[in-house]
């Protein structure tokens, strides 16, 4: 149709200008969009906060896990690997390797020095027989030794008055690093921080000896069971060790179970040390000994390796596997060797090794993300219902807009734009709120864990009283809505004031459960971004249905009955 343009005097352009004007006015002239923005902001903030804390926890767990086992772990059977000094020399020469250390991993029983009297408690433990010097180059073993003298006076002042570390001698740390009691030149043992029940963790993450059982300097008896390469159990062997220090890795399972002894002691106790090789087919000599035909090499059951910066754990694992295979081939081809390298062994990255620990937390985080994302549906439903009510209320406006030439698409865009603005504003505020909460989570947690300050309690009671006065005034005026609102305010504020008065601190993030002193306080920006986009998307989806309804409204009906 050739329509006569009686308005040809003006340049035609942007048809969305009126939609912007109308939707902006709908936004700014009423309270309900503020409620919708607040709802979206709370949903977004909740998801970001939960996922950020979970991600931070996972990152801390991973960082802690890697600091315990290095990047790559080579594990043989219980019979161990021979010639590991030669193998380690080759591995240390690799350009990808920053450090490598041997160890024996077994289980044992530890008789504790407590309680007083002849009956002592016994704990089952994981025994790591280690070379402490090279272990410190692969893991954070040296840094994880808990008992150490304060570096300086300022560090001492920062400790609690009854903290035993204030009075410690610097030798305790050196003894721990060497697993040697220097005063007696006796091989020592380092216990995981929670192997002994004598260590009571405080809220600030420090430890106080419980019932006076300060472990360093006390003696424990370790019993292990040697197992032959054929799997036969020999007579259990035991040794008394002085406790030289205790180790806090941050992983509860490790700190509760693991003890560290020197490698040579472990090899000797488990009969994995170097020993003469007898010819049992020959006749014994006069004293009943068989002739010695060589020596069996000492063995270890694990090698831990640390990658150089820039080399991934996966790349190092592949390189170590190839090096080990070539080494094993050479040993097998060498007729002079009295032992062969085990062919069935595991070469794993630290993530593979600790997957039992990491994967559940990862799954838990994803589950939380999915569960909390269901809040989006609530958000979309809320916006849908608010917008539906607005469309019904604004039916006549829609008729007016259609009468002046607004298209159905234009009318729809008014409400979609409305939803888009609410979603964008709500998401932006939600990200800000989450940032404020997450970055201040520890002070907030600290505040929750402490008694409410007197000023806050008094303020809460004053506000509750003010609401009660408002309630009385409006009740006398017989106004229902103000009376209801003042009643709700009085109830909520009275409950808050009562709660603050009775509250004596709630510890949510208990370090004795999570084993990290601080709550993770880094915002997961990837999660924040995706959550914010989700908030906008679901707001638009929530507004799309009322927007489509608005577009379908018959303008004649709207003008006549709207």
């Amino acid at each position, binding site marked *: *149709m*050739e*329509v*006569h*343009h*009686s*308005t040809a*005097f*003006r*340049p*035609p*352009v*942007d*048809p969305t*200008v*009126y939609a912007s*004007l*109308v939707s902006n*006015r*709908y936004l700014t*002239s009423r309270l309900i969009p503020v409620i919708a923005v607040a709802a979206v902001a709370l949903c977004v903030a909740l998801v970001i906060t939960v996922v950020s804390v979970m991600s931070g926890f996972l990152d801390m767990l991973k960082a802690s896990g890697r600091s315990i086992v290095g990047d790559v772990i080579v594990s043989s059977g219980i019979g161990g690997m021979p010639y590991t000094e030669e193998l380690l020399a080759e591995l240390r020469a690799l350009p990808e390797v920053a450090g490598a250390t041997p160890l024996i991993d077994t289980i044992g029983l530890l008789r504790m020095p407590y309680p007083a009297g002849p009956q002592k408690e016994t704990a089952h433990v994981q025994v790591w027989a280690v070379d402490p010097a090279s272990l410190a180059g692969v893991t954070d073993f040296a840094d994880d030794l808990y008992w150490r003298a304060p570096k300086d006076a300022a560090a001492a002042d920062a400790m609690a008055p009854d903290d035993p570390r204030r009075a410690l001698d610097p030798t305790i740390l050196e003894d721990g690093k060497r697993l040697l009691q220097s005063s007696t030149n006796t091989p020592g043992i380092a216990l995981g921080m929670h192997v002994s029940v004598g260590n009571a963790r405080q809220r600030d993450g420090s430890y106080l000896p419980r019932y006076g059982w300060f472990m360093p300097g006390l003696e424990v008896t370790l019993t292990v069971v040697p197992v032959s390469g054929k799997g036969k159990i020999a007579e259990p062997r035991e040794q008394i060790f002085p406790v030289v220090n205790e180790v806090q890795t941050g992983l509860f399972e490790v700190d509760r179970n693991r003890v560290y002894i020197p490698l040579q002691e472990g090899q000797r106790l488990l009969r994995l040390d170097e020993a003469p090789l007898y010819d049992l087919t020959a006749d014994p000599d006069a004293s009943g000994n068989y002739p010695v035909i060589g020596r069996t090499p000492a063995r270890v059951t694990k090698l831990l390796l640390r990658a150089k910066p820039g080399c991934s754990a996966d790349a190092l694992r592949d390189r170590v596997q190839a090096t080990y295979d070539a080494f094993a081939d050479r040993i097998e081809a060498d007729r002079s060797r009295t032992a062969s390298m085990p062919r069935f062994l595991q070469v794993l990255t630290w993530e593979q090794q600790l997957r039992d620990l990491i994967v559940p937390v990862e799954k838990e985080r994803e589950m939380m993300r999915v569960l909390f994302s269901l809040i989006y549906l609530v958000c979309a439903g809320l916006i849908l219902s608010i917008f539906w009510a607005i469309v019904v209320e604004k039916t*006549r*406006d829609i*008729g*007016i*807009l*259609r*009468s*002046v*030439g*607004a*298209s*159905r698409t*234009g009318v729809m865009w008014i409400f979609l734009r409305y939803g888009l603005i609410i979603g964008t504003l709500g998401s932006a505020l939600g990200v800000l709120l989450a940032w404020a909460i997450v970055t201040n989570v520890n002070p907030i947690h600290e505040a929750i864990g402490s008694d409410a300050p007197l000023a806050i309690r008094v303020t809460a009671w004053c506000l509750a009283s003010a609401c009660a006065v408002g309630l009385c005034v409006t009740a006398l005026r017989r106004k229902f809505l103000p009376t209801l609102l003042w009643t709700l305010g009085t109830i909520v504020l009275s409950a808050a004031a009562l709660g603050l008065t009775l509250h004596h601190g709630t510890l949510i993030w208990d370090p004795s459960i999570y084993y990290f002193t601080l709550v993770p306080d880094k915002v997961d920006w990837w999660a924040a971004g995706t959550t914010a986009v989700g908030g906008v998307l679901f707001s638009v989806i929530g507004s799309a249905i009322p927007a489509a309804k608005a577009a379908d409204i018959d*303008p*004649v009906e709207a*003008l*006549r009955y709207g």
Partner: protein
Amino acid sequence: MADLPLLDARDVHKTYRFGALGVEVLRGVNLAVRSGEWLAILGSSGSGKSTLMHLLGGLDRPDAGQGEIHFRGEPISLQPGSALDRYRNRDIGFVFQFYHLLPELNVLENTLLPALVFGARSEGRTAVRQDAEALLGAFGLGHRLTHRPSQLSGGERQRVAIARALINRPAVLLADEPTGNLDAATGAGILDLLAERHKQGLTIVMVTHDHEVAARATRQIRLLNGMTDRSIAT
């Protein structure tokens, strides 16, 4: 072409359906509106006046195959919705009995609304804003530009509605009982305003049930039982 009606309704039927029940509101209306005339359509309540107005203004369509509305000789009822949107925006100006202003917009914004729908930006918007201010000034509302409709009297609201209807300089003004909600003196003022615009060449189609109001028009027709009653056409 000189005799071509500006608006031409030919044998227009309109039936509203309420479930199985059909109410035939218009039963073959024929009507020609010539450029520059002021036509009053008289009729009692329920005679189909407003329905005819909606059809003429492209807000609604006649029953399928039951008549046609032409604008400048072109059929509009068969056009797609987007063409009807443009038609309502650029060629028609509506004035309603109950003003129908958007309560959230002020006087100036309400007046500008059709121009914004048309799409006026930058220098175009400045020009149209000046037009709107001039119109409102001419209607005695120059001091009310930023007021909301709720702050205006009935007569002022109707003047804003007329300014809105005229802002895009339409070919035809369709007024549905423009004085129906006003007292006699205010209504007379509104009719004076329409008369002034008519003198300047504006084509007006006005629906009313009031003979005195209709008398201000240059021509009258009556709708009776959904049909034009030619006996009173003047």
